[in-house]
């Protein structure tokens, strides 16, 4: 472990860029300078990240994290939250692709946003996003991670709503922020529970600051049993579930996924950067970061796996029927994120991160490609108005082709390796986090179906966009909201290829989507071609990830949590033998994964199956949509299962109605103020009754005084002074 102050530059360079562009860019009105400032600030981060990761004792080479303690942010009592950064193997891996992909997207955006009146504002937000995202990744404790977590949410809000004069953009922005807040609720509570259980919120031990690692404390506890009661027991399982609520919000999982498709109202580079490559994978990052907690919470892992698989297939079916090119990609993103959570749920944390990386490459590529298409089509997003574009936009077409093959899972392309890894790990998942082994096959089956659907809808998208008849010249294929102005624009311009600032990032990403998968070739496949295959990603990440405890009591009655435990937090057991060594050496990790011939055979077989699935999906899609690109898809899919409508009808509208009519008008104004006014009126009425004594006639006052005096004197004369308790 060593300190390195360069680390903070990774996050502060983009912050500086944001500040410069925000305050000065407004006056500059020079797109070139603004663009250079924005790109170079991210470029600086990228260079430093690579340097710190790969230099002689870089983060990816040593087992100790590089730390940078800046200041103690909050310290009250025993609670301590530092502004401290840490670059270990996990955050290093993440930082590398986030900065690099982020840099490419910044470059792309310079071309895409050309001529926009809010150019400076856009790049200020984009840089601010990089700051927040890198803070999230590099944070050395939960609370600072939450800062980044909310920060990316804010930037997402600002960037989705970037076109401030569009109503749907504002609505989508608001929806994104609020849905994320629902998730953040879980994150905050989980964070507090972590503190409650361990007395620390730090990921890493910092002895020189007197900070212990919360994750190590968890690693030292015994695992929760697999039972639903554990969810409410206030132990590791509760923490894991609460954190997962946060992850589900940020990473768009059921039931909180609804914001992500709407978020496509933002500019396309934003969709690529935030809503495909980086921010939405923050949930996965957080779960992998907390693998020490999850591996002690089998119930939570099972929940994660189920939700992930359900989201994957659910979103994929919706993706089949969308006509907006970005909506297809959005649902595809939701679906792919589901894969990642499925991987987390079955304990394949490395596979999840691997898929995050390859997904960042090919989905950023696809989004940027769609951005290039939209740019070339003069802001037309409806695929029914495209077609035959490969002639007009050859580079975009070629690059998107690789993205398509990658996401569909065709071998040698990046997506194949990561997706196959997830499917294999699901198939071969142990009993730790699953009620029975049949679940692993069922989850694999869902994953395989999703892979098939992915290939189909991606083929549909490619075919509708790049092949077939050139439909952009036809006047009205469908009702279109934008009206005459948009129509007029279309007719004037032909589609054109985008400028080099946009195509160069596309090409780079296309290369990465093609070869990026080779960092994680599994032994089973690698050994076909080489004697000593190296799985770089596994080798790098395995040491910082926790594994299922070796022996976990399988619960069926005998180990059920007793009543007391479910009613109260589990007492900690720090004295027992540690179930897991969170930071084992690389040797230990590889030794653990002995490759039995039987497993290798199975893995190869499954890989073959997934290749066949992908090929079949592409072929099927090609056959259908090549002939009939405008094929009417099922209504229910096109309308996204009416989930938004259901949410509106069951949650949002009742809530609003109850608040307005019930709480405000009935209770606040009616009951409370009504009671007060009744009280006031009663006093007024009483006053009105006795008012008649005050006629204004002085002599009647005198008479009343006289009568009063006589009554008093009479009282005392009759009863004596003791009536008032005075001595006689």
């Amino acid at each position, binding site marked *: 472990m060593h300190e390195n102050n360069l680390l903070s530059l990774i996050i502060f360079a983009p912050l500086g860029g944001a500040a410069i562009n925000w305050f000065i860019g407004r006056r500059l009105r020079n797109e070139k300078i603004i663009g250079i400032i924005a790109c170079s600030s991210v470029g600086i981060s990228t260079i430093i990240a690579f340097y710190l990761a790969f230099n002689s004792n870089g983060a990816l080479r040593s087992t100790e994290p590089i730390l940078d303690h800046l*200041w*103690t*942010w*909050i*310290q*009250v*009592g*025993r*609670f*301590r939250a530092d502004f401290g950064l840490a670059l270990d193997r996990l955050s290093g891996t993440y930082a590398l692709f986030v900065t690099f992909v982020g840099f490419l997207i910044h470059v792309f955006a310079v071309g895409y946003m050309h001529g926009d009146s809010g150019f400076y504002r856009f790049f200020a937000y984009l840089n601010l996003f990089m700051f927040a995202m890198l803070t999230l990744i590099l944070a050395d404790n939960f*609370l600072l991670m*939450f*800062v980044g977590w*909310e*920060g990316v949410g*804010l930037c997402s*809000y600002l960037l989705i709503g970037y076109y*401030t*004069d*569009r*109503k749907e953009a*504002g*609505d989508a922005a*608001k929806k994104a*922020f*609020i849905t994320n*807040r*629902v998730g*953040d*609720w879980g994150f*905050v*509570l989980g964070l*507090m529970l972590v*503190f*409650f259980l*361990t*007395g*620390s919120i730090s990921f890493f031990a910092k*002895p020189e600051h*007197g900070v*212990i690692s919360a994750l190590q*404390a968890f690693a030292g506890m015994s695992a929760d049993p697999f039972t639903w009661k554990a969810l*409410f027991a*206030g132990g590791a399982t509760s923490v894991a579930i609460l954190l997962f609520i946060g992850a589900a919000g940020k990473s768009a999982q059921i039931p909180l996924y609804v914001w992500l498709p709407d978020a496509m109202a933002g500019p396309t580079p934003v969709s690529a950067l935030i809503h495909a490559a980086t921010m939405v994978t923050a949930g996965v990052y957080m779960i992998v970061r907390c693998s020490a907690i999850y591996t002690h919470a089998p119930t939570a892992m099972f929940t994660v796996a189920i939700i992930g698989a359900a989201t994957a297939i659910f979103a994929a079916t919706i993706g089949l029927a969308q006509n907006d090119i970005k909506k297809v990609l959005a649902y595809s993103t939701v679906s792919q994120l589901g894969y990642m959570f499925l991987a987390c749920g079955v304990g394949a944390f490395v596979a999840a991160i691997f898929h995050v990386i390859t997904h960042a490459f090919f989905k950023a590529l696809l989004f940027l490609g769609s951005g290039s298409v939209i740019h070339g089509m003069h802001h037309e997003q409806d695929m029914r108005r495209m077609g035959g574009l490969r002639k007009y936009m050859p580079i975009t077409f070629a690059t998107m082709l690789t993205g398509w093959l990658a996401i569909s899972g065709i071998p040698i392309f990046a997506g194949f390796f990561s997706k196959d890894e997830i499917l294999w790990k699901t198939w071969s998942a142990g009993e730790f986090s699953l009620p029975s082994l049949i679940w692993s096959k069922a989850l694999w089956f869902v994953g395989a179906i999703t892979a098939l659907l992915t290939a189909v809808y991606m083929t549909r998208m490619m075919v509708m966009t790049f092949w077939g008849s050139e439909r952009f010249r036809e006047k009205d294929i469908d009702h279109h909201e934008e009206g005459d102005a948009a129509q007029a624009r279309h007719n004037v311009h032909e589609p054109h290829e985008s400028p080099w600032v946009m195509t160069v990032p596309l090409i780079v990403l296309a290369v990465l989507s093609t070869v990026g998968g080779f960092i994680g070739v599994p032994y089973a496949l690698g050994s076909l071609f080489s004697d000593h295959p190296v799985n770089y990603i596994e080798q790098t990440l395995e040491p910082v990830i926790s594994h299922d405890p070796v022996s976990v009591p399988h619960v069926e009655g005998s180990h059920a949590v007793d009543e*007391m435990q479910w*009613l*109260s*937090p589990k*007492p*900690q057991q720090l004295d027992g033998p540690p179930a897991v060594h969170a930071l084992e050496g690389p040797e230990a990790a590889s030794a653990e994964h002995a490759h039995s011939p039987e497993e290798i055979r199975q893995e190869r077989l499954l890989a073959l199956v997934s290749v066949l699935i992908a090929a079949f999906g592409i072929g099927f899609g090609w056959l259908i949509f090549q002939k009939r690109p405008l094929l009417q898809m099922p209504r229910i899919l096109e309308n996204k299962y009416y989930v938004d409508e259901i949410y509106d009808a069951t949650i949002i509208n009742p*809530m*609003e109605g109850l*608040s307005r009519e019930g*709480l*405000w008008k009935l209770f*606040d104004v009616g009951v*409370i*103020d009504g009671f*007060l006014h009744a009280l*006031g009126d009663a006093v007024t009425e009483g006053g009105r009754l006795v008012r008649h004594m005050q006629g204004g006639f002085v002599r009647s006052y005198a008479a009343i005084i006289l009568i009063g005096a006589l009554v008093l004197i009479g009282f005392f004369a009759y009863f004596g002074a003791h009536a008032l308790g005075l001595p006689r």
Partner: protein
Amino acid sequence: MRQHLLTILILLPVLGTMVAVAYSFAPRRQDDHYKWIALAVTILTFALSLLLVGGVGAAEFRFEENVNWIGAIGARYHLGVDGISLWLVLLTTLLMPIAILSSWTAIAKRQLSYYVFLLLLEGAMIGVFVSLDLLLFYLFFEASLVPMFFLIGIWGGERRIYAAVKFFIYTSVGSLLMLVGIIALYFIYGTFDYAAILAAMSAQPALLSPNAEFWLFLAFAFAFCIKIPLFPLHTWLPDAHTEAPTAGSVILAGVLLKMGTYGLLRFNLGLFPNMSRQFAWIMITLAVVGIIYGALVAMVQPDVKRLVAYSSVSHMGFVVLGLFSFTEFGMQGALYQMLNHGVSTGALFLFVGFIYERRHTRLITDFGGLATPMPWFSSLFVFASLSSIGLPFLNGFVGEFLIMLGSWTSNAIQHSWTATMLAATGMIWAAVYMLWMLQRVVFGKVTNPANATLPDLSAREIGLLLPLLILMLVMGVFPRPFLDRSKASVEAVRARVAAPPTGGSFAGNKPAGAQVEPRDLSFNALEGGH
């Protein structure tokens, strides 16, 4: 001068009113000059109040003044600041010049009396926070009512009379009960002096019967809960806020509400710790209900100012929740949240005031798309709203988080986890109502042509916002200087009120002997090191 600093702080604004009145007899007076006088006086007061910062840190009172006031009944003129009142005094003195600047062009009629009332209000508010004699406290507590009554009643909106009367009667009913409580305390302990009563309480605990403590707690709590305002005693607030002039709303939200929570912390928790423990579940229930209720009602308000007012109910619920968690996190967070609320909500009222001054309407539906004609206004408004929502690295988050952490680890009530989970939904609601309001006011297309040509913020308007905006950021990123100063004083109150630690849970029956307080692993070394 330092030993009389507090008296100077209280009297300086009063002196300012005299100067203003004297100037009104000048032969060639101009009405525009009153605000300059008021501004100069308040800025001077603020500058002087900064001297307090250096002297406060430990638990005991500093800058004490203790002289005979009404000898016959033993009432003393006893002033002092500790870590709790220090920041509230500074908040008061900071908000006053801002409030005066915000009235710069908005107030045209009867300027002399307007600024006189503002200055008198400042003196009374400072007095509330620094008096350590119960009778003196009561005097200032009531004295702050009168100027605010006139500010609302004379310079308010359409229903100003109703709002002013409602405000006055509501709060004075509470404070009269408190007066009864103060007199009762006098008959029990023979003194009005806070420190003397505290000393007597620890010396002779038997003097105060549980029955008496029960009623005394209620009398004080009633006064303060109305002032906070705690659900369901909050209905004066939306009316008062809505009808008050901008400066009045800022002061009301920024300082007057804090008098309630300050009173709870100083008097209810400080003087009646046993009853506080027994009442904790009621207070926490009301606080949590208030958090959610205030937010939900805020969500559906058609009037921007009313929306911000109801959001105050929600935010102040957090403060009460923190106070009654009896943990260091919760109580420090509550104190911090008082400051945050003063800064953030004060700023929000300023923003509402700006657009009201331009359009003379507060209805949300009358606005829309202000981002186009007023970019500065919109950016800063969004910033302040985010602070109110509780975005990390802005001030609101630190307070709310500490409060929730406090209530999570609290053992004041049985279901502290459930309470925290409900309270934490306040985070979601805050986002809902603020963003929805922003959506309809700031974003979108300009639908009303009257909004299309609105002038953006002037230099004065940005200038008066700037201190608050900077504070939002500073308090969010570097909260420790603030928290450290109040630490010892809050801890002193907490030590009196806290019960033996057992820990929170979903349900009440905790396993015997399960020590579930956060483990003290290696922090002691750290604390010693500082």
